[in-house]
């Protein structure tokens, strides 16, 4: 057989599909083709035989890079099936392809393909592997174990705002960044399925660091059972590590009229200088827990909005000797007016 050496090394041309991003563990690499080309015409594809190898290299959001990143070339990603190299043999063709790879590590990645016999290799363009749906949660900070009714609960106030903060990650522990999905913070009585009401913004998305913040969250009513918190989403149902005892009323902020108070609803005018009819108030916290055992003070202020019309005043002329007498009287007789 007459073997004619190539006068110039061939190149590998990449036909890379337009992929925006691939979700780790969910989306597979679409068909990515590689084609040997040569500037000369001596490349006879029908007679060519070669082996190729491929691997994955990625840049991660923490600034590190890694070659030989594990991937799963043919099936759903599984630690046991994961590998860092995939190879194949090509006979009688200048083209070959890879497809169906699944990834576990989120980052900006490329596939490197090498043909050792020709001593050539090529890198695909970068493509993004993003975290899959949130599956795991990890609380940042600590929750209180005991609070009073209607109290705010938080685990972190790093931003200056008291929030329950948690890292959310996918099944491969990639942080779920800038999630489109909202995650619901809810509560339930420990050991039961009965829900417990939380006050405040109970939905949150993750930020660019993969952290979700539920801020200004308040517990509600006093409970004899501990209250446990849960974060839920399409793929996550995570119970936070601490359950909270809610005992005693919280800060008194709400007043409501007691049973026997009708003075404020009355249309009968109040007489100036005389005492108002009794008004009975019940004081509670923002969740309606009556402020038993708390020293509560109510301050009453009076704001005049409309003065009585001055036309109701009377003008008279008195004799001067009467006026002098009147000036020394402490109280005028009723018939004076």
């Amino acid at each position, binding site marked *: 057989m007459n073997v004619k050496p190539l006068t110039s090394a061939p190149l590998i041309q990449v036909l890379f599909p337009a992929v925006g991003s691939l979700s780790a563990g969910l989306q597979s690499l679409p068909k990515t083709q590689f084609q040997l080309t040569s500037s000369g015409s001596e490349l006879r594809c029908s007679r060519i035989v070669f082996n190729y190898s491929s691997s994955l290299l990625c840049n991660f959001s923490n600034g590190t890079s890694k070659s030989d990143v594990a991937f799963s070339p043919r099936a759903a990603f599984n630690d046991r099936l994961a590998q860092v190299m995939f190879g194949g043999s090509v006979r009688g063709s200048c083209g070959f392809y890879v497809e169906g790879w699944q990834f576990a590590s989120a980052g900006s990645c490329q596939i490197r393909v090498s043909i050792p016999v020709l001593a050539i290799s090529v890198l695909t363009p970068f493509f993004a592997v993003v975290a899959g749906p949130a599956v795991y949660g990890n609380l940042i900070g600590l929750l209180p174990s005991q609070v009073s009714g209607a109290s705010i609960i938080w685990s972190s106030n790093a931003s200056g705002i008291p929030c329950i903060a948690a890292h959310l990650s996918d099944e491969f522990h990639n942080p779920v960044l800038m999630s489109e999905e909202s995650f619901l913070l809810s509560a339930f009585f420990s050991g039961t399925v009965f829900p417990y009401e939380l006050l405040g913004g109970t939905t949150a998305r993750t930020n660019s660091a993969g952290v979700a913040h539920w801020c200004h969250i308040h517990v509600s009513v006093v409970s004899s059972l501990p209250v446990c918190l849960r974060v839920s989403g399409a793929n996550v149902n995570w119970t936070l590590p601490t359950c909270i005892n809610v005992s005693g009323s919280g800060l008194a902020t709400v007043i409501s009229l007691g049973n026997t108070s009708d003075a404020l609803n009355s249309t009968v005018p109040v007489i100036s200088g005389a005492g108002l009819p009794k008004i009975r108030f019940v004081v509670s916290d923002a969740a309606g827990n009556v402020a038993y055992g708390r020293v509560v003070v109510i301050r*009453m202020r009076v704001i005049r909005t409309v003065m009585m019309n001055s036309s109701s005043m009377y003008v008279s002329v008195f004799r001067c000797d009467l006026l002098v007498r009147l000036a020394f009287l402490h109280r005028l007789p009723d018939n004076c*007016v």
Partner: protein
Amino acid sequence: MLADSEAEETSDSCPGGGSQYFQALENNGEVVISDAVVCSAGSSILIFDVGYIGPDGLFVPSALSAMTATIVVESGKSAAIRLLSANSTTERTFARLSTLVYVRFLDSGYNVRLFAFSYLKQIL
């Protein structure tokens, strides 16, 4: 912030009135407002703030304007008079007065019930 037409009653403008404080006597969450005094005749807003007395003895609000109510206040019976002169002049004893003297008849909330004026003939 009060509007121009609004004014908060004080203990100066309203005897026994102004900001008045009421405490839960039995710490059972119930507070009774009794013998609260309002003075200005016309329409007024009662504003109830909730709080506690701080270590320095001052009221510390936990909720401002926790409840408000509008009331109508009527003038009461005359309870006092006030003598006023139209301008400040120096008068001489046992001489004819040169200034006009007013008398205001006030109820116990200092609302003017009656208004009278005359020249006094002389200072006695």
